[in-house]
């Protein structure tokens, strides 16, 4: 029996979904359109589904299993990525106080010494040109 064959059911549905008599007619129109829509006009779906049920193949379970396996594999790859990134991001093997503010040379003589290991010799005579051209 097709759903739209039962007009009594249509009227009952319209009654149950209408809170006022004004809307009953419009609701009946809406419901009738849904009930008249034949989703399997040639009966192909009916035959195909019955065949699938009788043969007993559980395709969805197999598909779901594959999806779950893929999801697990994705999670595993993500976890490996996070773990590997954590290892790469570890601190270099240097004494930790090298990064402390007070130990870090800034602009003083010790900074120059730290940078190129050249002794500060700013007061040497040859670095101070005299009025006679440095001689």
């Amino acid at each position, binding site marked *: 029996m097709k759903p739209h064959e039962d007009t009594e059911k249509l009227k009952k549905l319209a009654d149950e979904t209408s809170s006022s008599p004004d809307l009953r007619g419009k609701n009946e129109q809406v419901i009738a359109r849904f*009930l008249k829509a034949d989703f399997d006009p040639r009966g192909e*779906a009916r035959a195909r589904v019955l065949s699938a049920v009788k043969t007993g193949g559980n395709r969805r379970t197999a598909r779901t299993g594959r999806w779950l396996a893929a999801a697990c594999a994705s999670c595993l790859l993500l976890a490996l990525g996070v773990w590997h990134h954590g290892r790469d991001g570890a601190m270099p093997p240097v004494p930790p106080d090298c990064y402390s503010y007070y130990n870090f040379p800034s602009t003083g003589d010790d900074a120059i010494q730290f940078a190129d290991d050249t002794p500060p010799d700013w007061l040497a005579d040859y670095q101070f040109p005299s009025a006679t051209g440095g001689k």
Partner: protein
Amino acid sequence: MDFDALYAEYFDRIHAYLCCRVGEDAQDVAAQVFRKALAKAEQYDSARGNVSQWLFGIARNEANYHLRISLLRRMIPLDLLHDSIPSREKPVCDTLADEQEKKELLAALETLSSRERDIVTLKFYSMLNNREIAEISGLSESNVGTILHRAMGRLRQALTGGGHETA
């Protein structure tokens, strides 16, 4: 329970409900519903509800499960899974006689939330009353009535271009 009689009586309604819920995968899900019904026929207890309630309960659970898996499928678009859907299968809703009618109905359903679509299509195709739908869906009877009322307003707006109720 005679499975062939059950199938003959309920297939169209279950299939229509699933077309509205899951679209092109309705045949797959319908097959799963009737497989479960066949396998668990001896577990059916008439004291807990009528056959329609039992069968649409299975259909609703299967549709919800399918929608959750589909969401996961969209989040993980892996090529290795493409062969799981045979290309010979055409979208089931394309077999509707009136293409324009199909588009309008499905577009109207798109204006509803997932819960509204579930409840309103259950109402249309299961022929259950609000109390029985409440038992299937786990909602209260008054909540089902409210959802139906709101959903019908949106469907009227989408399909007849008006009909908003004045409170």
